[in-house]
Structures are given as structure tokens and as C-alpha cells.
């Protein structure tokens, strides 16, 4: 059937939550009502990545990029764009452009991106296996089952130089090879979809937008190492990803791409889903395996590594969602193709969830070696509200901050570690001048302290001690000794903790102390918070020269700390003030000041 137009509606979680489903339904209904349903195919796809502007609707072949669409807009989109062939200007992303069309290729957000992992996201309907198959889907599995030997597969991954995308960057081929070489009556394939970094949603979007790529990759791994069972460990708070995975697995089974005797090759493989309760530590592989086995999610010392002795003591290949999504394309296009992308240290691309004080937050995939500046300024559009860039946190609570001076660092596994941060799974949180660096460090540290499983003392006790010291500093009771003490405790945790959670928990502190020592000193010596975030260290006051006595602040103050006659300067009583900042937001004359 020949369609005149294709309407692609983003069905990622972010757009779903702003009514993408209702938009999809309205578009289908309008196409019917206006008699064009035979000419138009409406498709609900995975995430387009440009979440800042969602919900997004793309209409082909004009390649019109509509943003912030509402269900009420469906009627106009169909009657204008589809029936009359006129773009609905007010909904286009690039309204002011003098060009005739705001094409996707003209949007800066997409120009520096290179999509391998997200190749199908935002293009195919993830709930329809045929669309995945049409995009060479399950072609890699075909090759593996009928044309390649197990060693060929591992060799191809070795040539590709693919390293694990979960954070540590361990070479994938090596992991597979370990498991392959172990003799065992049973082996397992596990997909780690326990994405837990604050602000990170790369894996969720991949599973929502292209679930079959992960299923195909796991089946390939099963055949390569000799495993017949796969398990996807995913947190229960990802309901849409779970639903799409379940649909994908059913369709793959119906087609005989999962189950017994796949494509008549004699190879059996099936996958099941295990739901996690959302503990951060379960993203650590040994804790994850313990959780699958029904135990409390706590890590165990390695070696032995799971590749040798994993789930129920059997060899287990465990990879992260993004790693899996790379595999089919490497098999199809060859390791040499993949090897050419990126840097000598790190090949391929990396997906980042760009969030924080950034103009275009969203999901971006760039070749390794792209600089932070390109991601933040070219793709991200710079800092929101024209504020000053302060730092970017990569690697979530396990990573560290990177400052302005290092914005031109090409991103790969090695260079980020050198800066005291890490690649992590791909969260990237941008901070501006209004963020207090001590407060940020406290936020991340408290996250890992909360999420520590408590098994080993360095993490359990060390994390708590660091948290207490930071609390003291933000209260204004810190001493210079505290900086040394934090370094000492942090380094001990790095060396002695059982798993990566404890080993990396001090990173946010160590890196902020390194790059922003001045700000710590301001808190400790001058008892001041330069960004005005730490409540104990700031006072609000009213500038008598600017205050006109409009009484707006006094009326808004929740604790009646502000007094004064009409048309006369007001005053804040510091003993009553709870430093909520409402007066600062309310004042139109800039008379409220923070010190």
C-alpha cells in the first residue's frame, strides 16, 4: 500500500506523560473523520531524543518537525498539513526560519549526533516486529546461526573494540570469551536494565524504542557462548519499557525467533523478564544476580567474575542495554566498520541523557571523542536562561564534576577517568552559577549513602561520615581539617569498598574539592555560600534604597517575618526568617538581597 504521508508520534515515556497517546488517538480519529485514513499511516515510535520540545510529531515526506503538540492540534494538523498540504507554522520547531521547511537535518540538536544504538528509535513502531525486521532486524542472528562460527562472532567483537556501556568499559568480547571457554551444563545471558543514576534514561528509551535489538543481541550471545536462557533484569518503575519488551518477546516467539529450534537451526533460546524493586546497588552485576536468585541485592567479592561463575553458579554473560543494542549492527556491518568510529581508546558512540540547566535537555548519541563543549553548546544549545556555565557532572553519583577549563576534552572512557570523573552509564547533568557545588556533592553523596546495601564497612561507615562532614560544612561549622579528613576517608573507601558503589561514592566530593576548593573555603572560612543555596549560611535583607514599600513580600511571607508601613521600606526579622526565598521571587524591584 502506498501512503501519501507518514505521521510519526513519539511514544517515549517523556512524551507519553505529556499526552502522546491521546495525540496518537486524536490523529487516527481525525484522519478517519477527514477521509484520509487510507492515505496516511500514523505510527507511534520510540523516543526522538529531543525531550525538551516534546511531545513531538514528525510528518513525512515533508520531514516537518512539530513540537509541543497537544491533542487539540490533531484536527488542524490533519486538515492543514495532510489535506491541504500546508505546514502548520505555529507548531513547527523552527518557526522563524526563512527556509520553507524546518527539516530535521537543519535542527542543530541533531547535527552532531550519530545514531547507532538509537538507529530505530523514533523511526519504527516498537510494538511491531515487522518494522524491526524491515530495518535488517534479525539479520545479524541469521548470520550468526548459519554463516559464522562462535569464534567468528567473538573475533568480530574484538575487532570492533566494543566496551561495556554500563560504566566500567570492560571489553565485551573478553567477557563472552570467558564464558564460552568454561565447560558447564548450563549458562545464562543477562541484560542489565537496572538503570538508576539520577537523571539518566538512556536504557529506558532504547528498550521503549527498539526492544528487538536487545532480544536479538541476547540470542546471538546465547548461541555464541552456548546458553539457552536469557533474563532481562529491569526495574519495576519502567512500566512502558516492560510492556514493549513483553510485546516484542511474544511477537518474536510467534515468529520462531525465540523459543525452540530458532529458524530451523536447532538452537533453542528464550528470554524472561525479572522485575527489580529499584535498588541502585542492583545495577552492580553481582548484586543484580543475587537479586535474580531471590536473595537480598548485595554484591559479592570478585573474582570469580560472573562470566565464569555467575547466576546459580553457572557462567553468565551480563551486559548493559546499550551494549546489547550495539551488537546486531556490529555483526551486520562488521567489526571494522565499528572500529573506525570514535577514538583509539573507545570505539563507537555513546548515548547521553542531557539534563540540568541546559536549554535542550534530551537524549543524544554522539561518536566517542566528541567534546563536552559540542554536546553542551552545539547540541544542548547552551545554558538555560543565559546563565554562566559552572560544571557538568558525568557518571551520576559515581562520577565527578568537570569544569569550564576542560570543556574541550574529547569524551572517551580514558579521558574522563583522568579528570576524576567517569563515563558511567551516560547521565550528564549541567550546572550553572546558581548551583552550590558543596550542595551538589551533598546531594550525590546522600544518594549513595541511602542506596548503600550496608554489607561492607568502608561504604556503610565511610559514606555516613562523609555525609556528616558535608552537613557540618553547609551549616557553617566546618573546619579546614575537614577537607583533609574527607580526602582520607574518600581514598579509603575507594580502596577498600567491596563494589563499585562504595568505590566511586567519594568521587563527587573528591572532584569538587579539587576543582572548587575556593567554594569549600568560602563555606568553611568565611561562612558564606557564594551561590546562596546553603540556608544556614545566608541571610535575606531588604535594600532600603530600592524598596518602595509595596507590601508584596510581606503579604507572601509564610512566617510574617517582614514588617513595614505602606510606602516605607520594609524589614526582615532574621530571627523569624526561614529563608524560603519567596520574598526574593516576589519582589519586582530587586530590593531583596541574599548574603
Amino acid at each position, binding site marked *: 500500500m*502506498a501512503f501519501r504521508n*507518514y505521521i510519526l508520534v513519539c511514544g517515549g515515556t517523556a512524551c507519553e506523560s505529556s499526552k502522546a497517546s491521546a495525540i496518537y488517538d486524536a490523529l487516527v480519529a481525525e484522519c478517519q473523520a477527514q477521509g484520509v485514513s487510507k492515505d496516511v499511516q500514523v505510527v507511534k515510535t520510540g523516543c526522538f531524543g529531543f525531550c525538551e520540545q516534546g511531545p513531538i510529531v514528525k510528518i513525512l515526506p515533508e520531514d516537518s518537525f512539530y513540537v509541543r503538540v497537544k491533542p487539540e492540534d490533531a484536527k488542524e494538523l490533519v486538515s492543514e498539513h495532510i489535506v491541504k*498540504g500546508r505546514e502548520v507554522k505555529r507548531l513547527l520547531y523552527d518557526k522563524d526560519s526563512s527556509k520553507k521547511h524546518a527539516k530535521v537535518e537543519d535542527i542543530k540538536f541533531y547535527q552532531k549526533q550519530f545514531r547507532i544504538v538509537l538507529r530505530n528509535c523514533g523511526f519504527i513502531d516498537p510494538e511491531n516486529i*515487522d518494522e524491526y*525486521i524491515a*530495518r535488517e532486524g534479525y539479520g545479524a542472528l541469521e548470520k550468526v546461526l548459519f554463516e559464522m562460527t562462535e569464534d567468528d562472532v567473538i573475533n568480530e567483537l574484538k575487532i570492533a573494540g566494543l566496551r561495556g556501556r554500563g560504566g566500567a568499559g570492560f571489553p565485551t568480547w573478553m567477557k563472552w570469551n570467558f564464558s564460552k571457554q568454561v565447560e558447564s551444563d548450563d549458562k545464562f545471558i543477562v541484560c542489565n536494565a537496572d538503570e538508576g543514576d539520577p537523571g539518566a534514561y538512556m536504557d529506558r528509551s532504547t528498550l521503549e524504542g527498539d526492544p528487538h535489538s536487545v532480544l536479538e543481541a541476547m540470542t546471538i550471545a546465547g548461541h555464541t557462548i552456548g546458553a539457552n536462557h536469557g533474563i532481562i533484569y529491569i526495574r519495576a518503575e519502567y512500566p512502558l519499557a516492560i510492556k514493549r519488551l513483553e510485546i516484542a518477546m511474544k511477537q518474536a516467539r510467534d*515468529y520462531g*525467533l525465540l523459543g525452540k*529450534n530458532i529458524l530451523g537451526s536447532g538452537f533453542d533460546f528464550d528470554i524472561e523478564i525479572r522485575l527489580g524493586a529499584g535498588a541502585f546497588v542492583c545495577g552492580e552485576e553481582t548484586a543484580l544476580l543475587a537479586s535474580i536468585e531471590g536473595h537480598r541485592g548485595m554484591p559479592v567479592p570478585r573474582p570469580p567474575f560472573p562470566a565464569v561463575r555467575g547466576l546459580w553458579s553457572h557462567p553468565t554473560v551480563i551486559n548493559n542495554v546499550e551494549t546489547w543494542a550495539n551488537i546486531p549492527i556490529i555483526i551486520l556491518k562488521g567489526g571494522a566498520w565499528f572500529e573506525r568510529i570514535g577514538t583509539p581508546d573507545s570505539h563507537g558512540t555513546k548515548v547521553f541523557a542531557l539534563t540540568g540547566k541546559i536549554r535542550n535537555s534530551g537524549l543524544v548519541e554522539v561518536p566517542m571523542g566528541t567534546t563536552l563543549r559540542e554536546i553542551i553548546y552545539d547540541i544542548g544549545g547552551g545554558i538555560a536562561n543565559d546563565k554562566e556555565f559552572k560544571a557538568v557532572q558525568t557518571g551520576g553519583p559515581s562520577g565527578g564534576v568537570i569544569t569550564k577549563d576542560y570543556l574541550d576534552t574529547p569524551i572517551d572512557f580514558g579521558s574522563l577517568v583522568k579528570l576524576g570523573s567517569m563515563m558511567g552509564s551516560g547521565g550528564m547533568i549541567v550546572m550553572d552559577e546558581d548551583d552550590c557545588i558543596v550542595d551538589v556533592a551533598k546531594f550525590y553523596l546522600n544518594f549513595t549513602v541511602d542506596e548503600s546495601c550496608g554489607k561492607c564497612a568502608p561504604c556503610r561507615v565511610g559514606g555516613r561520615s562523609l555525609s556528616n562532614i558535608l552537613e557540618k560544612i553547609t551549616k557553617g561549622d566546618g573546619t579546614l581539617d575537614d577537607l583533609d579528613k574527607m580526602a582520607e576517608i574518600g581514598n579509603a573507601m575507594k580502596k577498600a569498598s567491596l563494589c563499585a558503589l562504595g568505590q566511586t561514592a567519594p568521587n563527587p566530593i573528591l572532584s569538587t574539592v579539587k576543582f572548587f576548593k575556593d567554594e569549600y573555603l568560602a563555606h568553611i572560612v568565611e561562612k558564606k555560600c557564594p551561590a546562596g543555596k546553603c540556608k544556614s549560611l545566608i541571610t535575606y535583607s531588604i535594600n532600603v534604597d530600592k524598596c518602595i514599600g509595596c507590601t508584596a513580600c510581606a503579604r507572601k511571607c509564610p512566617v510574617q517575618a517582614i514588617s513595614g508601613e505602606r510606602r516605607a521600606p520594609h524589614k526582615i526579622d532574621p530571627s523569624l526568617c526561614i529563608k524560603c526565598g519567596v520574598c526574593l521571587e516576589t519582589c519586582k524591584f530587586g530590593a531583596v538581597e541574599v548574603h
Partner: protein
Amino acid sequence: MPQYEEAQMAKMTLEELRKLRDKKKVEIKKRDVSDRDTHIIVGMGTCGIAAGGKVVLDTFLRELDSRHLDNVIVTQTGCMGLCYVEPTVEVISPGMPPVIYGKVDASVVKRIVDEHIVGKQMVSDHVFDRPSADIIKDGGK
């Protein structure tokens, strides 16, 4: 809701998977507009629609489809100002000057596809205009 092809109760063989992929590839390729170099624009103003623009648009889609020409984008536009020769169609194709054809009907559509797009020969008896272009721009060449 587009349904995936229900599995023929028995599981697929390698051959069947390949056949399904080839079939679906043709369908999904139509959605991919990245490498298309030929653009057909059908005038769909009131005059164009009244004169049969809709038939022309549908015939283009069908003809391109049956010939597997997937490098062509077909879009619609408003009135091009040649109301006396509606339906009008603008064709932009590599190696060919941009042309506006007039008095197009289903049989002319077939000729445009066969002669202009495939054969790189203009359908001379239906050429009514060329979009205004700066002829000095390239040094008068």
C-alpha cells in the same frame, strides 16, 4: 493499529524470514526521506483539486510504488498560479531542469514517471512553465 503479519502458525524458516524482510523493507523505505533526490509537487489549490489534483497525486503514488522508485518525494502545495492549465505538477529531478507540467491526468502521470523521471526526457507537450530562476547566477552558463 497496524498489525504485524500473524505468524503462519508454524514458526518461520530462514527463507520465510528473508522473504518477509524483503517485503517489509520496501514498505518501510517509503518512510525514509533521507536519500531522495527527486521531488514531485502537486498543485492542490482549490483549482487544482477541482481539476483532478487528487487523482494525479494518488496516481503518482501508485505508479512510483509499482516501479519501486523510492528516491522520489511526492508532496502537495497550494495554487501555483497557472489555474488555466490545472492540475499542475512541478518536477525537480537531478540532471534535469525544474519543470512545471500542466493539464496533467492519470495518463500524463505515467508519462512523467516513465519519460521524465526514468528516461530523463521532458514530456514536452505538457511543459507550461519553469520556476523562475536566476539565469545569471552561474556566470550565465
